[in-house]
């Protein structure tokens, strides 16, 4: 019970501090907008080529956004040693991870949802007929990115060259999630859209496995 209540309290803190400063969301939305606009110049929006490459470019843009968003996740806790205060206050350290990865998933999902209409117009790809299915893929993909990213952010925050370490560790680890998410999105953006259930199944398994690993071993990642 304390795990859920502690997670809820910490999630409230994460949302309050972010919506008060809007540092992370503003930076990420601007960044991802620039990336999507730049990508759009490389394709003829009326051609079938655009439809073919749009899914992978979309997830590449989301990956850039995620690496930008995940970096300060634990770094922000270091300036005033607030991570120690949290460790001394929570009964289950997993609550710290659960709150941070929930906040990261929410922020990432919000950025993606803001970006979908822009993407649809620039790449001439209709996303609204498959909006519901797309939200499912975006949620499962973002959750996978956030789980792995939050864990790696905790590791890299304590290391030297931390700014380099996170993307270096994150990219190889997220390759399976990105491949699965891209394949499902590609199928949904097809001229005759369909749901790639194999990809969805893979994303669910990835999320469950990594979440369980974080629950079991997360405590050690927070140790000094």
């Amino acid at each position: 019970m304390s795990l859920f209540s502690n997670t809820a309290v910490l999630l409230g803190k994460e949302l309050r501090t972010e919506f008060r400063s809007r540092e992370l969301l503003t930076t990420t939305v601007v960044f991802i907008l620039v990336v999507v606009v730049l990508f759009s110049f490389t394709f003829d929006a009326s051609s079938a080529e655009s439809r073919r490459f749009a899914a992978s470019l979309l997830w590449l843009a989301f990956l850039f956004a995620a690496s930008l968003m995940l970096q300060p996740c634990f770094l922000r806790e270091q300036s005033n040693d607030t991570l120690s205060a949290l460790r001394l206050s929570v009964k289950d350290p997993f609550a710290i991870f659960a709150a941070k990865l929930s906040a990261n998933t929410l922020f990432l999902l919000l950025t993606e949802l803001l970006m979908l209409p822009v993407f649809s117009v620039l790449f001439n790809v209709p996303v609204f007929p498959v909006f519901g299915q797309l939200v499912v893929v975006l949620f499962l993909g973002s959750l996978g990115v956030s789980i792995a990213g939050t864990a790696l952010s905790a590791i890299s925050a304590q290391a030297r060259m931390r700014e380099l370490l996170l993307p270096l560790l994150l990219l190889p680890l997220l390759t399976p999630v990105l491949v699965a998410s891209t394949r499902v999105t590609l199928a949904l953006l097809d001229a005759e859209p369909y749901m790639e259930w194999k990809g969805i199944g893979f994303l669910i398994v990835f999320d469950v496995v990594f979440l369980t690993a974080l629950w079991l071993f997360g405590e050690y990642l927070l140790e000094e």
Partner: protein
Amino acid sequence: MTPAAISPVGIRFENIDKRYGGLYALRRVSLEIAAGECVVLAGRNGSGKTTLLRIAARLVRPSSGSITFLDKKNGAITAASQTGFVAHATMVYDELTAEENLLLFAELLGIAEPAARTETLLAEVGLTDRRKSLVRTFSRGMRQRMAISRALLNEPSVLLLDEPATGLDPQGMSWLAGSLRQMRDAGRTVLMSLHGESEISALATRAVRLEAGSVIADTQTGASLPSILTFAGA
């Protein structure tokens, strides 16, 4: 500050070693701190004071050895949750208000009436009129008051303070000395690291000096306290 009635708790460090790679931060440290004692840890920078305090707070795991908290009343081993820790840093969020900070930690600690406890502590540290202000707008002294009030949220029996006087002006120093005196008199065990003599070090009933991670002096007497604190450039 009016401390609540607390159950006195002592601390026993047994053969504590802490290594970072090949470097020893602490080497075979054994100390027994009786319930209600006010102990000063002295020593140069890098002598192991912070590491010992963070081990006592259970933030750092020792490489070997053990630490036990002993309840004076019934002789039982008690939970580490009876400790309050004040570190070098304030351990509070700059982007939250004073009230939001204390409420956050009170709720995480599972305190029965978090709002009432927050209100009481803010009044005790004299920050009631700034309760809606963001901590980032506070002076060093006010931040230190916040740090101490956060550490006292769960009414700890053991108070661990890592150089609590750093950056305080004479007024802040007097406030801190007064607060610590009340905590000591209420029966709380206080273990703090300090640099040199001050109004705060005068409260100590015992001083322990660390050098290169080992205890090199341990005295109970008030008379030899200054020499331990200022010994070899502390």
